[in-house]
């Protein structure tokens, strides 16, 4: 198999679909998954601020290394990592293009590296935290922090609909393909072919939203018929839902350990 074939396999719709679903649901083996969702959310809030306290590139790189280790431990989707790397690279690239006209591009990029690093740290920690939490733990965590159930349920439901959306979208793109004409000559690197597919993908978007909106009518009725509204005001129901959460030594240890790492980086580098 050539590298190109391998790349094509890895970026096939099926592979991406499986990768994303695995990220959303199969996180039980990961380290962060064992932690209490409230601790994890608090940790996340702290790490939203930490990067902004430092300006030194070395310290920032150290932080990035730390959160990257956590991301690897929580088995982040390769597709999402790739997407993020692509965004970071193109952002830096676009700075360069713009600054060609305004002055020295190299200097501009050098000045913007710390800023981009900070954003990347935050992105990687988001990936780590949210890939390690399943829909259930995430909504439990948010619910216990006082977020209304209407909203936390929406998260669980969104996750539930994810595979349905993928299926629906894939099917619609296929429907478009069977009734369209592909470009006669694909062009160098098949670029015309890919532009054509990209166009169809955009056009399939509206029909997908339409179909999903149609489904939701039955969903809402079914939720109503099984006491969803009732649960909003029911204390016992809320307690049941949050019953199996508890903060254990490992949670405290993780939180304290992370702070230690940050302090260590700040002092040593």
């Amino acid at each position, binding site marked *: 198999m050539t590298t190109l074939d391998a790349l094509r396999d890895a970026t096939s719709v099926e592979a991406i679909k499986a990768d994303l679903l695995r990220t959303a649901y199969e996180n039980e083996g990961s380290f962060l998954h064992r932690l209490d969702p409230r601790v994890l959310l608090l940790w996340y809030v702290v790490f939203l601020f930490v990067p902004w306290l430092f300006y030194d590139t070395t310290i920032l790189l150290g932080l990035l290394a730390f959160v990257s280790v956590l991301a690897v431990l929580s088995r982040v989707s390769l597709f999402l990592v790739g997407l993020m790397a692509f965004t970071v690279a193109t952002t830096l690239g676009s700075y360069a293009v713009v600054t060609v006209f305004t002055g020295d591009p190299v200097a501009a990029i050098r000045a913007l590296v710390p800023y981009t690093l900070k954003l990347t740290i935050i992105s990687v920690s988001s990936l780590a935290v949210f890939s390690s939490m399943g829909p259930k733990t995430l909504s439990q965590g948010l619910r216990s922090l006082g977020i209304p159930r209407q909203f936390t349920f929406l998260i669980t439901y969104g996750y539930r609909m994810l*595979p349905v959306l993928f299926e629906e979208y894939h099917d619609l793109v*296929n429907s478009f*393909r069977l009734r369209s004409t592909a470009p006669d000559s694909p062009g160098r690197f098949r670029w015309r072919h890919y532009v054509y597919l990209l166009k169809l993908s955009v056009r399939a978007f509206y029909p997908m939203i339409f179909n999903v909106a149609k489904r939701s009518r039955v969903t809402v009725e079914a939720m109503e018929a099984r006491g969803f509204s009732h649960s909003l005001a029911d204390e016992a*129901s809320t307690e*049941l839902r949050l019953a199996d959460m508890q903060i254990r030594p490992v949670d405290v240890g993780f939180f304290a350990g992370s702070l230690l790492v940050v302090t260590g980086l700040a002092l040593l580098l």
Partner: protein
Amino acid sequence: MMTATHDSQIAVDELQFRYPGADEAVLTGAELTIEPGEFVAIIGGNGSGKTTLCKSFNGIIPHFYEGDMRGQVTVAGHDVSESSVAELSQHVGYVFQEFDNQLVSPTVFEEVAFAPMNYGHEDYRERVHRTLDLLDLSGLEDRFVWELSGGQKHLVALAAALSLDPDILVVDEPAAQLDPVNARETYDRLATLNETHGKTVVTIEHQTEFIAEYCDSVVLVEDGIVRWKLPVETALNQLEVLRGQDVHPPQVTRIAERVLDDARPLPVTLADGLDLFTDYGDTTVARTDGPPEVNRKGKPVISFNNVSQSYDTLRSGTKDVLDTLSLEVYPDERVVLVGSNGAGKSTLMQLVTGLETPDEGTVTVGGTDTGDVLPEQLAEEVVYVKQNPEEMFIDDTVRADVAHYLDDRGYPNVEQRVDEVIEFLDLEDLQSRDGRLLSVGQQRRASLAIGLATNPSIILLDEPTGSLDLASREEVGRTIDRAGDRVETVVIATHDLELAASWATRVVVLDDGDIIADGPPSDVFADLAALERANLHPPQVVRLGTELGLSPAPLTVEAFTDRLNTASPPDETSKPTVEEQ
């Protein structure tokens, strides 16, 4: 029916209901009483108000749709308009027709626990396990709902509705969305719930074979009122009334109608039919029936060569859909692929379109390997009409959808050809509407139009009669016959064995990713072992014929009647046409 273990009566008194924004009322004075422990079927045409009536039992009408309601509905002693949906839901479990959309949680356990947790029942774990045990679903707790088969999803939806242990269960059209085997399984579970747990079961149902076998009584809803509620035998003898609603009586009843000439009530179940026709003399003469066989000529149009296909799931392991399957389809064949859900029928069709290429083996269409060309190129020869018609609609009017392919390829006279197809399929009134907003029956007709407009030489139809009434089932056959002069080969995937029996020249039985029987319908339907292995249920007429010792068993009601007429009339007037063995 057994004595109920509860006193949850349903009493509907002069119920009128108009949906918000609608001009006309859906229900215009419905009167109905359903006693505790009954097993009732509700029938009625599209738009007759039967679903609205059922939704008033758990208060979705009038609390969720705040339309204009008059009259009174009392369920288990609660006045529906005075009680909340939450309160009523503890008495009435509801399984929706689009049960797929009713599953709101990712895993089976969470789905079944949804209601008990909403009501704050601390014993929700026990409730979930008890309910899953009741429906033989134990072991599925951690599975993702989207990785289940259609039949399992339906049972999970049923389990979720049962998790609060309601006295009354309403199930909307179970047989329409499931294959016959799964539908039967659902009905068996419903029968157990009714007989041993005393639950009242109300199903909205079109398929009279299920009604005859499982229900106690039938309610006909017509033009917004309850026309009658009758015991099942009497109800299914109202042949004219049923046909007026596009409901087709069981095949046994239809045969008896043609054969009997006295005023005796007609049989409605297979067992009754057997009792009746056993006395009908010797019927074992062989006659050919079913469509004539076509000799295979020329080169195969489609060929599968040792094709294997599988896919990975998160929690259900790797699933092999096709396993080194080989099949050749010749010009002028009318092939029906049968097999239960998940047997690989749809995958086989997807492979012909080139949208998927096999993991192993090759698929060739008209001599071209599907791996060498784009699906867009194959689409010039092949058209694939999907099982779910909704996925065929990509434009905002039916007409634009029909024209899409022709426009995109710059064909001449697009308007004229679109007009032809639209007229041919009787879509004039619907052509400017959005396909996605039509009823399922209309959607299916529109999706056929979209397919035929491409003027293909190979037509692949996936479940064309799914959730269609029988009138349209015959229509599908006729439509294909007149579909176009270029059409060489038609392949239909279906679990509708009546369609297979009456239309196909070749029936291919798939099971577990491979072919276990292949031949003309009369041969395949005689191979009861293969059908049983593939989890298929032969049409009632075939079962009746086989039980009576007819060999080969007649495949259609007409053939059966002919056989009886030629073999047995006590006072013979027509010329005997017994053939030599």
